[in-house]
């Protein structure tokens, strides 16, 4: 995988959200530009990645979970955005995540539909353009983390870059959160009700198990779901929200072969029309029923 090609999120009001994301620094490409996004508007980063805003009556944004999208901007542009958000009376949260590389990136807010946006700073100097430079990372939830790891590593060929919840160090750090001394992003920590009577305290703070995968120049976060949620219908393989992963044509064919060998229901490869920004896509759901699109963007 070379990186994230696009991210599709659900919003209830296309015009309002298009204006909001343009104000952040995305370039709008207008309506119905990406394949299989329903009634949508797409926007573009400086790096050529896309953000698809797909219209939905009940956007699946999962704000209380680890699910979020992270976009890269320059430090000075982030300050400007901070002021714009304040003017719109949108709170900026400064909670943290566990990845060491996100040390400077405790900057989160919610769009109108509860999609959590993180802004990470780039080392690049600002050229005054105010543009969103790239999609840095995106996170999804799964109800079975071992199966998810097996899928992303063995079938999609990604590598685990960072894990949280496997070590005592993470448990010790979670105690800080439990004491109110460290503000952590949703999905990274949880309160566990002990089922034994041996513990003096019935409720203890724990890290919520999750890991991050390196996907080319992007990162994917996979969080353990702490509640069961309704999955899309089993037969539905194309949907939103979804994450698009960029590959070469050869890698796409190899991936389709592996997916079919492992009996994952796959839709495609679908060759898109000559006017589409994507040449060919394969649609599949990960073990957490998250929609994925493995695709070859048009040059």
């Amino acid at each position, binding site marked *: 995988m070379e990186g994230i090609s696009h991210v599709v999120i659900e919003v209830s009001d296309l015009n309002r959200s298009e204006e909001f994301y343009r104000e952040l620094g995305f370039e709008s490409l207008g309506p119905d530009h990406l394949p299989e996004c329903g009634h949508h508007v797409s926007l573009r980063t400086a790096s050529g990645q896309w953000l698809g805003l797909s219209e939905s009556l009940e956007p699946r944004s999962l704000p209380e979970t680890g699910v979020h999208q992270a976009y890269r901007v320059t430090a000075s542009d982030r300050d400007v955005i901070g002021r714009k958000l304040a003017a719109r009376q949108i709170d900026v949260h400064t909670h943290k995540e566990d990845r060491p590389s996100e040390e400077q990136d405790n900057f989160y807010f919610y769009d109108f539909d509860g999609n959590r946006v993180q802004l990470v700073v780039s080392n690049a100097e600002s050229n005054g353009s105010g543009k969103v430079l790239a999609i840095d990372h995106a996170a999804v939830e799964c*109800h*079975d*983390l*071992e199966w998810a790891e097996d899928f992303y590593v063995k079938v999609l060929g990604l590598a685990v870059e960072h*894990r949280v*919840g*496997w*070590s*005592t*160090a993470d*448990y*010790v750090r979670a*105690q800080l959160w439990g004491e109110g001394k460290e503000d952590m992003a949703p999905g990274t920590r*949880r309160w*566990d*009700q*002990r*089922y034994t009577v041996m513990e003096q305290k019935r409720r*203890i703070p*724990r890290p*919520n*198990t999750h890991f991050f995968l390196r996907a080319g120049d992007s990162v994917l976060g996979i969080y*353990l*779901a*702490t*509640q*069961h949620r309704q999955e899309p219908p089993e037969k539905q393989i194309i949907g939103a929200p979804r994450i698009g992963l960029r590959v070469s044509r050869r890698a796409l064919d190899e991936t389709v072969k592996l997916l079919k060998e492992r009996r994952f229901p796959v839709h495609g490869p679908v060759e898109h029309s000559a006017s589409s920004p994507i040449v060919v896509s394969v649609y599949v759901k990960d073990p957490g029923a998250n929609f994925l699109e493995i695709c070859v963007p048009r040059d």
Partner: protein
Amino acid sequence: MADVESLSHSAICVHDLREAEEFYCDVLGATLGGRVNFKTDDAIRGRSVHGSVILEDYLLALMVPRNFMPMPPEDQHRGAHGFRHAFRVSRNRFDEITNQLKGRNIAFEGPVEHPEKSPFGQSIYFKDPSGNFLEILWRRDEEANYPKPYITGVG
């Protein structure tokens, strides 16, 4: 009074489950057993993270404690409290294994000779990354048959 019928498993605490799994699999030749707290149902029930490794006929559960355990000194390879897990290899593989440990820069004490009349032949003593004491030995009675415990899973 309990008249236990067999060993089921034992559990040790490790500071990093992944590191411990790799150690027990690479160094001792274990295979991975079940793991807990990687599914939503485990999270809902407030279960702690633990895994297990299977060493031939032995189930060793690996628990992740909430606080760091006191580590024994670097150069101490046998437990102050005497607790350790000892695993048997056949005599003709013992030297090769000792060399492999050296090759992986795992510090150990030994080989230590046991008395002629003891069922043990020679032992080497070392630690896992979390300071748990381990021993590998060959036994003089290696021809004898031992009853194998029934492996139950964790989970």
